[in-house]
């Protein structure tokens, strides 16, 4: 029988939740990296025992951790002395080092971006928001960082190199931080074309590369953001999350700051599909494992009040690719609930019926083993949940 492993990143450590395919009884291990913020933790689809974690701290900076045994043990890759010294005694790169590439050969000058007050502000590395393991090679992974840039490792996390064409895009000076910082928080690799990568940045928008990350184009036509002087500007949009179905990777779904959006041409144009949602503000958006037109969101009251409407925690599901949405409430609190669900805190497993999981800022991780029809908490009292990923194991 299949097994499920849910990887949870929180403000104070990581947790690994495991169950058999029934998804009713769970074991919980953790906290791993107790006391550190775990922005993201995700396993390789090629080798599910290979898991990468972004461990970060305002005091001590960025650490990358790697497990090669399914989350039982962890080590920062490349941190052994012999890993760090080359044959001639020269120091090699470090797993914790995320240096913007400003070299003449492959880099771009370190420029400025727009700050909250409209002034220009230098790019400064702060943390890794998202790690996206390659779909074909367990030693390759991409990292989305704050201030926004994309890095890649090809040696299982020992060294990271910036794909500087994104940060160096001419629109960079018009990018600006969202409330949580100027993070590159979403990376989606096209499963049918590994050269095609989508990323989303708050608050710059969505970008696509068709050459493996060397060059990028903004793909935000159709987005409207009232906080911008030109609401339809090419960049500056606060895109919260995008997702695709593996069988139809040219169809993207987006939870923007406000608005649920859909593109059927790989992001060339977007149309709003918020439809009958009670509010279209929110953070995560995920597509069903087997039904490319079934989409999940968690509406939040507003950008000023980051909690569910009327204190009722409701996941909304559309089976029509948007516009028509139904509330899913069975097993979720329907009074006095004022948690938030962050952009990276929702995941879908690959079983049939598929499981849906999300974590809250109140420390609950909810699971549904039946496409979202009924929910149960796996855990109730973790630290605030930053990210949830799930692995479907044989």
């Amino acid at each position, binding site marked *: 029988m299949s097994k499920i492993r849910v990887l949870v990143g929180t403000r104070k450590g990581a947790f690994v939740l495991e169950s058999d395919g029934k998804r009713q009884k769970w074991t919980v291990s953790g906290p791993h990296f107790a006391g550190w913020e775990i922005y993201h933790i995700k396993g390789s689809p090629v080798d599910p025992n290979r898991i990468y974690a972004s461990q970060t701290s305002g005091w*001590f900076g960025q650490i990358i951790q790697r497990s090669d045994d399914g989350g039982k043990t962890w080590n920062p890759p490349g941190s052994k002395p012999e890993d760090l010294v080359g044959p001639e005694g020269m120091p090699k790169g470090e797993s914790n080092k995320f240096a913007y590439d400003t070299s003449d050969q492959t880099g771009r000058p370190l420029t400025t971006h727009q700050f909250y007050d409209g002034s220009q502000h230098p790019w400064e590395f702060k943390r890794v928001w998202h790690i996206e393991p390659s779909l074909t090679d367990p030693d390759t992974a991409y990292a989305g960082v704050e201030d926004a840039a994309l890095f890649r490792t090809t040696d299982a996390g020992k060294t990271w190199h910036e794909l500087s064409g994104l940060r160096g895009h001419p629109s960079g000076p018009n990018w600006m931080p969202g409330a949580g910082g100027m993070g590159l928080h979403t990376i989606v690799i096209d499963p049918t074309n590994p050269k095609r990568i989508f990323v989303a940045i708050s608050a710059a928008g969505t970008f696509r590369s068709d050459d493996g990350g060397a060059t990028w184009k903004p793909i935000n036509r159709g987005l409207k953001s009232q906080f911008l002087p030109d609401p339809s500007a090419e960049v500056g949009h606060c895109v919260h999350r995008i997702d695709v179905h593996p069988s139809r990777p040219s169809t993207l779904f987006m939870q923007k700051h406000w608005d649920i959006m859909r593109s059927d041409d790989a992001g060339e144009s977007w149309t709003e599909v918020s439809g009958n949602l009670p509010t279209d503000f929110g953070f995560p958006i995920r597509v069903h494992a087997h039904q490319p037109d079934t989409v999940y969101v968690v509406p939040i009251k507003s950008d000023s009040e980051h909690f569910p409407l009327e204190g009722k925690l409701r996941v909304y599901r559309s089976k029509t690719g948007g516009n028509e949405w139904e509330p899913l409430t069975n097993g979720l609190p329907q009074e006095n609930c004022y948690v938030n669900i962050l952009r990276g805190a929702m995941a879908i497993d690959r079983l049939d019926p598929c499981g849906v999981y999300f974590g809250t800022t109140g420390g609950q991780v909810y699971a549904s083993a039946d496409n979202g029809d009924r929910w149960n908490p796996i855990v109730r009292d973790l630290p605030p949940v930053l990210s949830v990923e799930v692995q479907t194991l044989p």
Partner: protein
Amino acid sequence: MIRVGLPYHLRNLAKVGPEVELDVPPPVTIHTVLSALESRYPVLRGTIRDHGTLQRRAFLRYHACGKDISFQDPNAPLPEAVASGSEPLLIVGAVAGG
């Protein structure tokens, strides 16, 4: 033998106790002690000072012999008591938050 005190999270990261002992050839300065520390515990690279500039991270301080020496020239000799190992160089996390 030079003694270095580490804050809780860096002890856990390096898998060491509250204090580590290091051989540091003279001159004994903040930079030479930290280089020896990072050489022995490479996971600490970047956690105390920047990888490239070697500047102290904003939320960390260096204490020695009851004094805050965070703003001392990092290439200046440390007090004899630290160089002789009778007093530790303390790396201290700033109290931020309440």
